[in-house]
């Protein structure tokens, strides 16, 4: 197990290293002066230019400047956003929690809806219930997320007027920025009208979360259903029936455990898809998350922000994927046998 942990840690470090180097290379690939792309200061005069050259060690060769870049990244100096003039690192730490919050709620909701539906569907293979659930999941899988979000805004926000269509919480409530997760912030704060603010934040969450959930949920239903069908067809399930166990006993003791664990790695893989969709949904609902922030950055050609945002999002995704991988390995004893089989 230690060997495995070491390998994964190694993978994590190497991947982060590659991503860091990639973001450094971006400064040279983006149009414009690399120095401006790194620091975020447009049109520096000669003296400032010399200072920046020295700060980023650009005059001391490629590897020296790469090393300098790593040190600056770890020190939290990610350059300055060309739009707002504030530090990129601060803006990332402000916007990233909002995106993670949205994705986590959507993921939890999809798991709560998707897993049971997938199991029901798989257990009643080739029956009416299965067909119904499968068709719904196919439809949910094919709907473009941004179109669904627009339709939801049209129906619920404009026609019916029951739900708000943009931002995280109404401007009436002055929520102190603490953790960056809006619900936690409201719960922690001692503002007046806390209940009302909480309700308001919930109402703002409904539409973005739902439009994200539809896609993720249908994916989960499809994965779960396939896995349940495969397991229920296998020989050891027949053996369990032959032993005289009832259907519910078979399903609970043999079926579900074996069906659910193998799909966990695949579920983790869907996190990147969810992130992509979350970034699109953020733009539509003006959710102040990293997706919206980066899209705005590209409209205004704010290259330091794009560089920082890319690094932040990919680091989050990679760390999440690898740590879940390790966690699953701990929970699922069978996969320990494959310890050395895979790189």
């Amino acid at each position, binding site marked *: 197990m230690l060997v495995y942990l070491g390998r994964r840690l190694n993978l994590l470090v190497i991947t982060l290293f*590659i991503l860091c180097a990639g973001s450094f290379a971006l400064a040279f690939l983006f149009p414009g002066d690399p120095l401006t792309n790194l620091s975020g200061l447009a049109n520096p005069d000669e003296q400032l230019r010399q200072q920046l050259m020295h700060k980023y060690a650009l005059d001391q060769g490629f590897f020296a400047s790469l090393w300098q870049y790593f040190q600056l990244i770890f020190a939290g100096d990610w350059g300055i956003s060309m739009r707002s003039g504030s530090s990129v690192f601060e803006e990332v730490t402000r916007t990233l929690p909002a995106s993670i919050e949205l994705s986590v709620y959507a993921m939890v909701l999809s798991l709560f809806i998707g897993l049971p539906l997938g199991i029901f569907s798989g257990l009643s293979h080739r029956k009416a219930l299965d067909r119904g659930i499968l068709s719904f999941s*196919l439809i949910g899988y094919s709907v473009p997320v941004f179109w669904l979000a627009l339709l939801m805004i049209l129906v619920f926000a404009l026609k019916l007027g029951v739900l708000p269509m943009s931002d995280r919480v109404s401007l009436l409530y002055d929520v102190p920025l603490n953790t960056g997760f809006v619900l936690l912030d409201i719960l922690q704060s001692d503002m007046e009208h806390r209940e009302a603010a909480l309700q308001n934040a919930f109402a703002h969450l409904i539409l973005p979360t739902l439009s994200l959930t539809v896609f993720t949920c249908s994916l989960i239903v499809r994965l779960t259903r396939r896995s349940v069908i495969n397991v229920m067809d296998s020989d050891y399930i027949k053996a369990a029936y032959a032993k005289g166990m009832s259907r519910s006993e078979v399903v609970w003791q043999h079926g579900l455990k074996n069906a659910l664990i193998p799909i966990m790695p695949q579920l983790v893989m869907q996190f*990147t898809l969810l992130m992509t969709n979350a970034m699109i949904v953020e733009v539509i609902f003006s959710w102040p998350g990293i997706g919206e922030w980066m899209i705005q950055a590209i409209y205004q050609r704010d290259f330091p922000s*794009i560089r920082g945002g890319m690094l932040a*999002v990919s680091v989050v995704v990679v760390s999440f994927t690898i740590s879940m991988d390790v966690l699953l390995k701990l929970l699922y004893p069978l996969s320990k046998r494959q310890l050395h089989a895979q*790189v």
Partner: protein
Amino acid sequence: MPKSSFYEEEPFPSPVRQTWNEFRRNHIALLGLWCLAFFVLLSIFGPILSPYSALEQNTDAILLPPAWEPNGSTPFLFGTDSLGRDLLTRVVNGCRITFGASLILVLVAMLIGCAIGAFAGMSRGIRASVINHLLDAIMAIPTLLLAIIVVAILGTGLVNSMWAIALALVPQFVHQTRDVTRREFQKEYVTAVRLDGAGNTRIFFFSILPNMIEMLVVQATMALSIAILDITALGFLNLGAQSPSPELGAMLSDALETAYIAPWSIALPGAAIFLMVLSINLVGDGLRTALRNRLTQ
């Protein structure tokens, strides 16, 4: 079942034929195939049939509702948008651009992915490990992020967004090809070919590729549906195809300003994307089931 004739050889359907027979039994998948065929024909012949051009503005018919609404008129079957352009023509042209671009980029991604995958599947040790690590790093980056970076480097445009999506799709093909190649290389028929003196390249092209084609087709249909969703999403965010172009996603973002008074200009292009993706997914699912049934028989 008794044989009808003693002397003639019993006809045994080819693998493709068997897959088609299995596929045909699934009526919903067949419906998806017809729907897909309709979209293909539409994107080939549609623009020729339509009386308007996609950019032509009819200033006397602005924001006309579709023909089935009380205020609509039949010359503009789907109504017009805020510049008086015929929506039906734009949707048909949009299907052509979106579908055609997705098809091309999936083919490119498949070619590149298969080449790298075959190479990775046949190589051992440090080379395979380097390829794996690189692919994992690319796979970890969300598609949209990759697209944002590519667009930031190359500038906006349909072709640039196609490169970005193709780059994001390549790892899937690499993984699939690599796993199959590695698995097949341990089978006996490959050993037999090797004993005949065939090299790695020859084994791959003449023995393994024919066994892999069907799986690749299934993978390509899945990739096609993702590609359509992504290309329209980028068009919608103004990162892909730019505004006057009748790409379906770009049309949706155009229609945003008049969404409240002209909801059909959002509903109809979106419905076209949805139907296109749905039919592709139906065909993909049907093919996958057919293939699975054939292999388990």
